């Protein structure tokens, strides 16, 4: 297929049909389960997957789990509930804050942050970001932490590798606790867990092993994020979710997927990932996307580095 800005456009009707056949077949015939459980994050991926499950299995066979914690953006719960209400599915809300506290997640993580900012306490919010200048210059990925007090006054510091690993290990427990809850509700109802990882995330390793990556089926893992949006519009996902900037929503201070991981907006990122995956000549990509080949080289190096660092997420555990 010739590379163009429209290369990711799909026939949404046919794609929806294909995916709901997949969900139907997998759930009822392969897994021999009676329905599906989905974690409703208030984002577009889980909204699309739940819409697809409703079409494939019927609304009576779909449960939406809402799994907020004290640092979640309140609109995530609000939008998740509104989307569930629109589809007419059963929902269960489990606040996972107590689970995380019992594992001392906040305590362990905050002790790392306090070493960097002694004044850090519950009145502060924080997030972690990568440098955003991927297209502009050759640079390396390093994580910076920003804390903000109640008045919005913020401070930023670079994290060492050790500090980032400890903060990240704590944050990842949030997704892993959610996975435990999803499997509890799935197993007790003889349902399966439907995952919500898209292709952009899968290729670049933007999910947590045995967290949001711990699922039974992945109905949209073959679709780039912008294709998920095409389905969201076709399926009638609520507008608030479609308009919301994609975010991991695991930090108390808002941060977008772009700021936290990808460093490029999805609209451009997906076209570049397509070019990378399909070995489209760089001069062709350059012409279509109006980028210099040097910029494409930088982005491809970043893709490769993330792909290499996360290869094990896409594999079963190696054996002899």
């Amino acid at each position: 297929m010739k590379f163009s800005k429209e290369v990711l456009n799909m026939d949404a009707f046919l794609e929806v049909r294909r995916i709901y056949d997949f969900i139907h077949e997998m759930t009822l015939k392969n897994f021999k389960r009676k329905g599906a459980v989905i974690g409703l994050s208030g984002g577009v991926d889980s909204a699309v997957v739940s819409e697809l499950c409703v079409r494939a299995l019927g609304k009576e066979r779909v449960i939406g789990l809402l799994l907020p914690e004290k640092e979640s953006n309140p609109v995530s719960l609000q939008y998740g509930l509104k989307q569930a209400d629109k589809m007419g599915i059963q929902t269960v809300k489990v606040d996972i804050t107590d689970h995380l506290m019992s594992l001392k997640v906040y305590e362990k993580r905050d002790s790392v942050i306090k070493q960097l900012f002694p004044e850090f306490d519950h009145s502060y919010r924080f997030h972690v970001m990568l440098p955003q200048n991927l297209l502009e210059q050759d640079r390396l990925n390093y994580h910076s932490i920003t804390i903000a007090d109640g008045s919005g006054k913020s401070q930023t510091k670079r994290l060492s590798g050790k500090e980032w690993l400890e903060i990240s290990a704590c944050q990842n427990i949030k997704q892993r606790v959610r996975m435990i809850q999803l499997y509890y509700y799935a197993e007790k109802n003889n349902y399966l867990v439907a995952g919500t990882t898209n292709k952009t995330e899968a290729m670049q390793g933007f999910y947590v092993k045995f967290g949001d990556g711990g699922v039974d089926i992945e109905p949209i893992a073959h679709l780039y994020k912008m294709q998920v949006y095409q389905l969201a519009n076709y399926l009638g996902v609520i507008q608030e979710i479609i308009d919301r900037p994609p975010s991991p929503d695991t930090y108390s201070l808002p941060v977008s997927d772009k700021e936290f991981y990808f460093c490029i907006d999805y609209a451009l990122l997906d076209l570049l990932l397509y070019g990378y995956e399909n070995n489209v000549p760089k001069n062709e990509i350059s012409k279509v996307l109006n980028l210099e080949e040097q910029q494409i080289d930088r982005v491809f190096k970043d893709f490769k580095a993330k792909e290499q660092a996360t290869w094990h997420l896409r594999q079963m555990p190696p054996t002899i």
Partner: protein
Amino acid sequence: MDIMGTIRNFVVENFLFGEGEQLKEDTSFLESGIVDSTGILELVAFIEETFGIRMADDELIPENLDSISNVVNYLQRKREALV
């Protein structure tokens, strides 16, 4: 030990588990997959601690960190600037 040997030893011991025969001075850490982004930050911490300098954010670029010779050249430039 000279700067080159110090950096080489750190990379071989920490990222290649002692098996550094194939590591050349100009081997790209990232392209060869020897060091990932977390590893680069370990390297930065090692450089800062061993050589008593602070690397600014805008110095965290491949030109300064992506091979043994890049690190050595960076440290030499840094020392010259301090003199």
